[in-house]
């Protein structure tokens, strides 16, 4: 039987790799391999997953150096020589084994003020929003993020400056800024223009390269840079 040579991260940040041999199937995902190890080799292996079909965003891990959704990554695509190196997501604290602590990621999501605050009450008449409106088109392009933290893990700036809000939170802020029904649009710009904000981005575009949904956070961040610069010149950022 053909086997895979799998190195799996064990323990917290101070841990190390443990080697496993898992059966190689013709058709298997990296998540299948991790699950096989937990069920057949070491039941104490910790990892996170839920939907297994690329909907929930909880199974992201670092596979052979790149952050990926393990459920949508076929082994044949990443391990041509039968070798897999599986680690938790980079740029985040490690809880145990393959489970990263996403608290900093979600804290920054909140800090970027991407929350929607309705400008009207429920009894007010609805404001018609045309799908062709440029702001709506920009918001639509950014809105499919499922918070998997793959972009956050791929971002060099997050690694270099730990306070940086990162691509996911800023992409969400860009969608919130473009939502004309949103009552806190200026707060969004204020939140993303401080020391930890959008102007840290060096446009490496690793986020866009790695986003499993095909979103372009660099585009969103560039948009925020333009919007905050305009607001600053108009004196709206005080």
């Amino acid at each position, binding site marked *: 039987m053909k086997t895979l040579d799998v190195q799996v991260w064990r323990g917290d940040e101070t841990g190390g790799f443990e080697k496993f041999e898992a059966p190689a199937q013709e058709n298997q995902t990296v998540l299948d391999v991790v699950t096989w190890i937990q069920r057949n080799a070491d039941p104490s292996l910790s990892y996170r997953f839920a939907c297994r079909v690329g909907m929930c965003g909880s199974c992201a891990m670092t596979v052979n150096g*790149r952050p990926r959704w393990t459920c949508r990554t076929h082994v044949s695509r990443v391990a041509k020589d039968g070798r897999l190196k599986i680690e938790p997501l980079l740029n985040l604290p490690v809880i145990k084994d393959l489970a990263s602590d996403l608290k900093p990621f979600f804290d920054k999501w909140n800090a970027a003020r991407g929350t929607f605050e309705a400008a009207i009450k429920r009894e007010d008449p609805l404001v018609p929003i045309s799908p062709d409106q440029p702001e709506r088109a920009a918001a639509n392009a950014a809105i499919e993020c499922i918070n998997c933290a793959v972009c956050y893990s791929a971002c*060099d700036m997050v690694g270099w400056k730990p306070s940086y809000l990162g691509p996911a939170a800023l992409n969400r802020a860009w969608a919130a800024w473009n939502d004309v029904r949103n009552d806190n649009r200026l707060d969004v710009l204020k939140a993303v223009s401080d020391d930890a904000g959008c102007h840290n981005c*060096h*446009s490496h575009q690793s986020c866009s390269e790695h986003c499993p949904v095909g979103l372009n956070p660099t585009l969103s961040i560039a948009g925020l840079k333009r919007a905050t610069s305009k607001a600053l010149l108009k004196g709206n950022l005080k």
Partner: protein
Amino acid sequence: MMRPTRKHSGYWAFLAHRLSGLGLALFLPLHFLALGTAIQGAAKLNSFLEWTENPLAKFAEIILVILLSAHLTGGLRLLALEFLPWSERQKTWISIGAGISLAAGLAMLFNLI
């Protein structure tokens, strides 16, 4: 070894821009130092200019032109990326920038300019 997440043209463009910038920052004080020799009379500057005719200085000059054009095209690319509406032709821009830098270096090499 380079982190696998960095193996794409956007990161290479960043690296070229940053390293050329550092190179130019190192060159600039030397440039002013050379110009400053003129304060002590034309002869001193002229003797320095004669020294720069040696092959090593000529070679360094070509590298300098490549660094300058790489930093210029890299900077224009960044300005376009961040201040103009997004274009899907990012990678083409990077290639054009790299091409112009190389062409500038080659033009110097063959004394075209």
